[in-house]
């Protein structure tokens, strides 16, 4: 690479080269942000559920074996 | 045991013959659209014939899948079958029934479509028709086997109708490639043994893996 001009225009193919790199950046950054937000919102969700009274929490049942009367 | 299962499949299907006829009708109608869309000239149709007939056959197989699995899942007989016999043998009987009632009729109907698509244009003999039938004989069982896996996986899923197509169409591509090119090779007066052998190889691989995988998937769907 000899100049900034060449760096930006990449010969005649600036659009091709830069769009490839740009798309890669967008997609991977999108995944990064998406996963981060997913973890954060889950964290918040768990926090809210933990504070809330055990309204929705259903406990597992047990078996009770008895003889008929 | 497989024989008992198969007999039942055939009996149920016989009473439900209209459901079986629809995919076949679809097969014919789709193919007959091409002359309208492209050109009724014989050389053009002949060139398109292998691809068009094979794609139509593939879609007809896909369409017919639901019928062989869905109702057994819904009315609870699938779980009874899995309680009484091994999942693999249930899968095998389903696959056999599916092929006998859809794959085989497709093979039988294919000469008719060959005529529609002018497959024997310019030659006196009917060798191309035979090659078409042969390629379908070797290829459609593989489509049944792979379709069984896809269908078994999606039985318990909520969006099922088109889901199965998305899952298995990529897996159908190799069969489509070699099925259609067998016929193309024959049209170009080239040797087609290699293509047929590969179709046979696909069939063997599918026979080894698919019934087992489909059985496992049926078990998961019911559980």
């Amino acid at each position, binding site marked *: 690479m000899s100049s900034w001009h060449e760096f930006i225009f990449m010969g005649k193919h600036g659009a091709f080269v830069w769009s490839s790199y740009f798309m890669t950046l967008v997609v991977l950054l999108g995944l990064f942000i998406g996963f981060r937000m997913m973890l954060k919102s889950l964290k918040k969700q768990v926090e809210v559920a933990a504070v809330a009274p055990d309204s929705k929490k259903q406990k597992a049942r047990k078996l009770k074996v008895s*003889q008929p009367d | 045991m497989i024989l008992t299962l198969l007999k039942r499949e055939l009996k*149920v299907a016989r009473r439900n013959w209209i459901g079986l006829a629809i995919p076949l009708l679809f097969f014919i109608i789709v193919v007959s659209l091409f002359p309208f869309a492209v050109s009724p000239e014989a050389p053009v149709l002949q060139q398109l014939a292998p691809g068009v007939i094979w794609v139509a056959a593939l879609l007809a197989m896909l369409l017919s899948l639901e019928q062989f699995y869905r109702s057994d899942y819904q009315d609870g007989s699938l779980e009874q079958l899995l309680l009484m016999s091994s999942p693999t043998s249930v899968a095998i009987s389903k696959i056999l029934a599916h092929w006998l009632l859809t794959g085989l009729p497709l093979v039988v109907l294919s000469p008719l479509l060959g005529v529609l698509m002018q497959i024997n244009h310019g030659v006196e003999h009917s060798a191309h028709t035979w090659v078409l039938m042969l390629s379908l004989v070797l290829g459609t069982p593989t489509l049944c086997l792979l379709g069984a896996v896809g269908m078994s996986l999606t039985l318990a899923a909520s969006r099922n109708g088109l889901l199965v197509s998305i899952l298995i169409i990529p897996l159908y591509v190799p069969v489509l490639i070699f099925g259609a090119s067998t016929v193309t090779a024959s049209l170009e007066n080239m040797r087609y043994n290699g293509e047929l052998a590969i179709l046979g190889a696909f069939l063997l691989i599918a026979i080894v893996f698919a019934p087992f995988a489909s059985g496992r998937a049926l078990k998961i769907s019911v559980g």
Partner: protein
Amino acid sequence: MSQSQDIQFDGLYAHELTVSRSEQILLEDADLHLAPSTITYLYGENGAGKTSLMRCLAGLLQPEHGTVYWNNKPINHPESGFCSDLIFLAHSLSMKNELTIAENLAFYAQLRLKDRVTTTVLKTQISQVLIDLGIGGLERRMFAELSAGQQHKVALARLVLEPAKIWILDEPFVNLDHKTRGWLAAKTLEFKKQGGTVLFTSHHHIDELPVDQKVGVEHE
């Protein structure tokens, strides 16, 4: 594994069973023994997991944890013979609308007996049980043509036509007329007398059927 090997439990034995459905743990750490020649009544409120427990005992649903043994062998072990000993009647009747009643029943019988029974013998047996159930002479009718009550009776006919050692019945008495309830209770007692193991659920107590064991799915 080791525990159940030390002590022998004939019949069906579930060890430390944890059953879940859609990630909800329904039942935790359950031990249950259904001995031969006993009738067990399974109760619990709707959604407690009775059906899931039954499906798990039948081997349809994979337990989250624990093992079910049949005559001291895990049920999925081929030597346990569980799949030929069990009749599991679920909510869904498992009959094909496209087949006649006789065809439906004969199919299951043949599948279980591996064609060791001749069709003529089977035919007379089927007509007999249909007469007993009050739907005699309907064997050549399509399953779809029957009323709901009649269809239920056809499903029950399997209990008589197929030899088994254990019955797991999900709500067998629901919507049955008085006479058929009596018939089912009598057949169940007869099966017990021959050494059979029975597990059934019901919303109401069944007067006609004295039980040996009651099992509740409930909170502690």
